[in-house]
Each structure stands twice: as structure tokens, then as C-alpha cells.
């Protein structure tokens, strides 16, 4: 059982309107694993991440969590997942600490220390500052500090390095490594290299017939 993949995606495809974004995507993620999604702009990295989170319904394929279809115990799966998307998802009227505490309490945990979480991204001194007064990079750090606020095992990171400076990228690498060493799993869509231990890479390429469609449009 130890070697069985914890998260298993099989033959996933995404349809946007009438356009097939990607098809036949499969992956397996084991305890402590990191999966890096690459691919050109518009290849569907964000879509795949949102699909794994369940925000986008897959056109075909299935997603297995601990060997069972995710849909069977969706709430159990969601309780074990953190999604850090393009947008920070922070409330600008609240302070960094309030945002983090709210995030944790909504997921039923209240024993994590928000200041310690901020400290691991080097912004403990901003703990009581309303997010409204923060720069994009600082907001990003607060948003990433949420990863430390719950015991969720699966982290879905969509372009986590956006707006981060070199120091913050190193800190994120450290947090990701610590999470993986504790048995956690990370899926990250990113162009740049994520520091820390290497993981698997999944390149999302457009399906063959989609290219043909492009060609036909050109010909017309």
C-alpha cells in the first residue's frame, strides 16, 4: 500500500467551449511527491490544477484519491487539499493574521500559529497590517503562508512564484521541501524552477487534432 499512488489522474481531458484544451493527461503522485506542470501559455496548466481541485469538471477521465474516485468522498478530499490560485483570495480589509486565522478556522483547524506561518515567509512583522496596504509580493507571501495553516496533505500551487523576490522563492522552496519530507504532496504549475528537491515533470502539450484545427483556421 505504501507504494500505491495517493493521487492518481487517468486520461484527463478538458473542454473549453468547443475547444479541446488537453486530452489523455495522466499522472501519479506518491507520498512526498512533487509534480511540476509545464507547458506553453494557454496549454491548460491552470485548468488542470482547477480540475484536480474540482472547480472544473473533467470532460473525460477520472481522479483517484487513495485509490477511490474523488467524487465518492469529495469533502474528505477537500479537507486534505489547499489550492493557491492566480488570485490571492485575501480580504484586503483584514490583517494578515485575520486572513490566515479565518482560512484555518473555516477548515476546522485553530491550533496553528499565524505569525509562525508568516515568519516562514519572512513577513512576521506585517502580521497586524491590513492586506490593503501590502505590495503584490507581500500579498503573495501572505497567501502562501496559508499553506502552513492546516494539516492538508495536497497542495495545488498555480504559478506560486508570481511577484515573489529571490528570498521569498527560496523560502517557498524550503516550505515545500519540509512539507514533502513530512509526507505531503505538491502539484505546482510554474514556468520557472521551483527551488528545493526535484520532482516529476508533466508537460502539457495540446492534443494533435487541436493543432490540426489551428492549421485549418490558418488555411481558411
Amino acid at each position: 500500500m505504501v507504494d500505491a499512488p495517493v493521487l492518481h489522474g487517468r486520461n484527463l481531458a478538458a473542454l473549453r467551449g468547443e475547444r479541446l484544451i488537453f486530452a489523455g493527461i495522466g499522472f501519479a503522485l506518491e507520498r512526498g511527491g512533487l509534480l511540476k506542470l509545464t507547458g506553453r501559455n494557454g496549454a491548460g496548466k491552470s485548468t488542470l490544477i482547477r480540475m484536480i481541485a474540482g472547480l472544473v469538471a473533467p470532460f473525460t477521465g477520472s481522479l483517484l484519491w487513495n485509490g477511490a474516485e474523488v467524487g465518492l468522498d469529495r469533502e474528505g478530499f477537500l479537507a486534505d487539499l489547499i489550492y493557491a490560485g492566480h488570485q490571492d483570495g485575501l480580504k484586503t480589509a483584514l490583517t494578515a493574521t485575520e486572513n490566515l486565522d479565518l482560512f484555518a478556522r473555516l477548515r476546522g483547524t485553530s491550533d496553528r500559529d499565524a505569525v509562525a506561518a508568516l515568519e516562514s515567509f519572512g513577513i512576521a512583522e506585517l502580521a497586524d497590517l491590513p492586506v490593503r496596504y501590502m505590495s503584490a509580493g507581500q500579498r503573495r507571501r501572505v497567501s502562501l503562508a496559508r499553506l502552513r495553516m492546516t494539516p492538508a496533505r495536497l497542495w495545488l500551487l498555480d504559478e506560486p512564484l508570481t511577484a515573489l523576490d529571490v528570498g521569498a522563492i527560496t523560502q517557498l522552496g524550503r516550505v515545500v521541501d519540509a512539507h514533502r519530507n513530512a509526507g505531503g504532496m505538491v502539484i505546482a504549475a510554474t514556468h520557472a524552477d521551483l527551488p528545493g528537491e526535484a520532482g516529476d515533470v508533466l508537460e502539457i502539450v495540446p492534443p494533435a487534432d487541436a493543432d490540426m484545427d489551428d492549421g485549418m483556421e490558418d488555411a481558411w
Partner: protein
Amino acid sequence: MSRIFLMLIRRDLLLARKQGGGSLLSITFFVLVVSLFPLGVGPAPETLERIAAGTIWVAALLSVLLSLDRMFQADLEDGSLDQLALLPLPLSLVVLAKTIAHWLTTGLPLTLAAPLLGLLMQLSPDAYGALIAAMLLGTPILSLIGAIGAALTVGVRRGGVLLTLIVTPLYIPVLIFGVSAAEAAAQGFSYSAHMLFLSAILSGAIVIAPIAAAWALKLALD
């Protein structure tokens, strides 16, 4: 699960307090609109008494409409809606929690302000009980139906007008039963039938509206 549900209501109340605006704006709008009527139609008590309940209800309805468009939009814009959709709680219950918070910050204060406006509008003394009871039952319906409209128009730029067009026709039954309850009471009749109708609409809306709004939100997130 119920802990997360209560936490969600507290979250929206906290945000309403910190961000300000919403609640106070609706109440001010409510008071202002109603106070225009004595100025517009003249202060003759019998005229005002005749239109009191209707005026208060229409103004309350418009105030609720005014507050609806931010119900989910603020959360969509900053990405919080994704996070809410990923809570280990069905999205329909997330919607219900947000709707309850919306009612606590608009419908309830409107109901509490209504008796004062009744004084201004020369409302018949016998009608106060019916007006307040009907508003207590009716304003949650306004929030619930409004949630469907707000969810349907959440991704639409400048969706406020569209939202008004969708929601206003659905508010008509509440308006009819709400106003006629107060009028029946003013004429000394029993208004329990109106209350029963409002309760029936409320019971239906509590079940249907969160599910419908959750479906609409899923479309917006997809």
C-alpha cells in the same frame, strides 16, 4: 460541518463590519426613499395612511436589491470564491450561510427600522404587528431569491441592472402578501393567512434558493 457553517456566517458579518458600506447604505437608502413620500404626496394623514404599508415594503425591496450585487461578486473578484467552493462543505450550504449573513446585515435592520418609518407614514396603529411580522418572514425570502440572481450575474460586468431585472418579478408575491397583511390588520381582519403564505414561500425558498444559487456559482467558477 455546522462549525464551519457558523464560522462562515461570522466571516461575512466580520467583513461587513470591516468593509462597512453595505448595511448602512441599505438602511440609509430605505429611510431616505420612504421619507420622500410625505414630501411628494403631501402630509395629509389619510393619504399617507393609505399608502404607508406599500411604500415601506417597496422601499425595503429596493434597498435589498441595492445590496445584492456585492453578495458574491466581491468574493469572485479577489479569488475568495474559489476558496469558499473548496471548503469541505457543500456549496449550497456556503450559499445559505452567506444568505443568512446578508439577511442579518440588511433584512433584519430594515425590519427594525420599519416601525419608525411607520410613524412617519401615519401607519394605522393596528398594522404595526402585521408589518413587522410580515417583514420578519418576507425579508429572508428577499435575500434567498436575491442570492439566485446574484449568483447568476456574478461574472457579468455591470450585472446590477440585469440582476434587478431577474429578481424584481420574483419579489412580487412577497410584496403582495406583505402589504396586504398590514392592510388586513389595519381594517381589523385576521392576517394569519398572509403569514402562512409567506411562511410557505420562505420554506420553499430556503430549500430551493441555495441549491439553485450554488449551481449558478459553479458555472461562474468553471
